[in-house]
């Protein structure tokens, strides 16, 4: 009888085949993925990606949320893989596309980083390590724990303090930076976020509350942040009031809903 041919166990299922196809640019050693949602960021993305490459060996995925300025080309020139939304779907949806990608490709940790250079890439390995070591399921970078770097103006801080207070009361833990998008998420978390439970509108404090209610361990770590160049941050402009209203509604809805069951629970 002929010996059974050696088969790669990963190729047994369709998902495994997809994982092979999506497998990282840096080879199978890549356990982590840095997820960079970007919309019309061709100007700044390049410097963010080259700075990131100096501090992290993780694969990089840019999710181009329907840009018209060649964001994807910049990303590819810098060695990142780029997924392209056919049209603008919003920041939260771009994050979720990244989660879906990471889940298919079989990464163990996703670190999300803003494309406008707000997040200092030095902290990517720090946040990822907390998750990879199994200490926590989600590690959120807080700009208020380090005592250095950019602290936003008072009016914007007021909103952060309000949502930080609400999130702290709900989760029973001190949350200093509820609007931070600088986060490392474990595989269990981003698999959970693939479904419609993920708040794709503005994933901020409501996302932290959702994580807590679903029983994930969340922790804050100090990071440094910079002012968004050109002031084109998600939370600036004429939108703060609307944002506060929407966020309060979103938190309320998250609290009123039954926390959806986790796939692994």
């Amino acid at each position, binding site marked *: 009888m002929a010996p059974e041919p050696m088969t*790669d166990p990963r*190729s047994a299922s369709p998902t495994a*085949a*997809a994982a*092979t*196809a*999506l*497998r990282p640019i840096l*080879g199978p050693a890549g356990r982590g993925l840095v997820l960079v949602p970007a919309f019309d960021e061709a100007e700044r993305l390049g410097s963010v990606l080259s700075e990131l490459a100096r501090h992290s060996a993780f694969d990089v995925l840019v*999710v181009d949320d329907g840009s018209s300025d060649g964001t994807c080309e910049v990303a590819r020139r810098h060695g990142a*893989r780029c*997924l*392209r*939304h*056919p*049209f603008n*779907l*919003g920041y939260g*949806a771009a994050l*979720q*596309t990244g989660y*879906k*990608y990471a889940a*298919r490709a079989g990464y163990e940790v996703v670190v999300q980083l803003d494309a406008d250079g707000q997040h200092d890439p030095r902290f990517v390995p720090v946040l990822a390590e907390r998750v990879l070591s199994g200490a926590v399921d989600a590690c959120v970078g807080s700009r208020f724990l380090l005592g250095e770097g950019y602290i936003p103006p008072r009016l914007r801080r007021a909103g952060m303090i309000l949502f930080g207070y609400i999130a702290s009361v709900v989760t029973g833990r001190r949350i200093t930076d509820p609007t931070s998008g600088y986060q490392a998420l474990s595989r269990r978390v981003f698999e959970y976020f693939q479904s*419609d439970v993920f708040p*794709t509108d503005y994933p901020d404090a409501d996302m932290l509350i959702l994580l807590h209610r679903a029983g994930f361990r969340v922790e804050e770590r100090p990071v440094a942040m910079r002012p968004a160049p050109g002031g084109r941050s998600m939370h600036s402009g004429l939108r703060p009031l609307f944002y506060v209203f929407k966020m309060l509604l979103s938190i309320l809805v998250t609290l009123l809903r039954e926390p959806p069951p986790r796939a692994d629970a």
Partner: protein
Amino acid sequence: MPLSQRALVVGFAFALTLVIFELVRKRRLREEYSWLWLLFGAGVLCVSFLPFSWMKAIARALGSETPTAVIYFVGFIALILICLQFSVRLSRITEQIKNLGQQLALLEAERDASSAPPDEDGPEPQG
């Protein structure tokens, strides 16, 4: 209610129902959206055939002086319900479009990855 008024309402209700049927027949309006509008047209038709004394009685029971106010109020509520139903549909469609867009982006990446020449320690041959 004067006869001219009643004729107007009956005519309107018939015309509305006819237009809806025609839209469904020409597939310009999906059946799943038509039933609410048909219900609306049928409602208007029913009201237009009610004897005026009944309408007065209904108005009085609802604490209104004139039956016209009641008709306006009921019509207003019906429109709000239809709008609400549209919002629910829109939310679902938004979610579906989002998922489609994401799926498209992921499939494109998969296609590009499998058509690209494998690097030296690339994926093993399948099968």
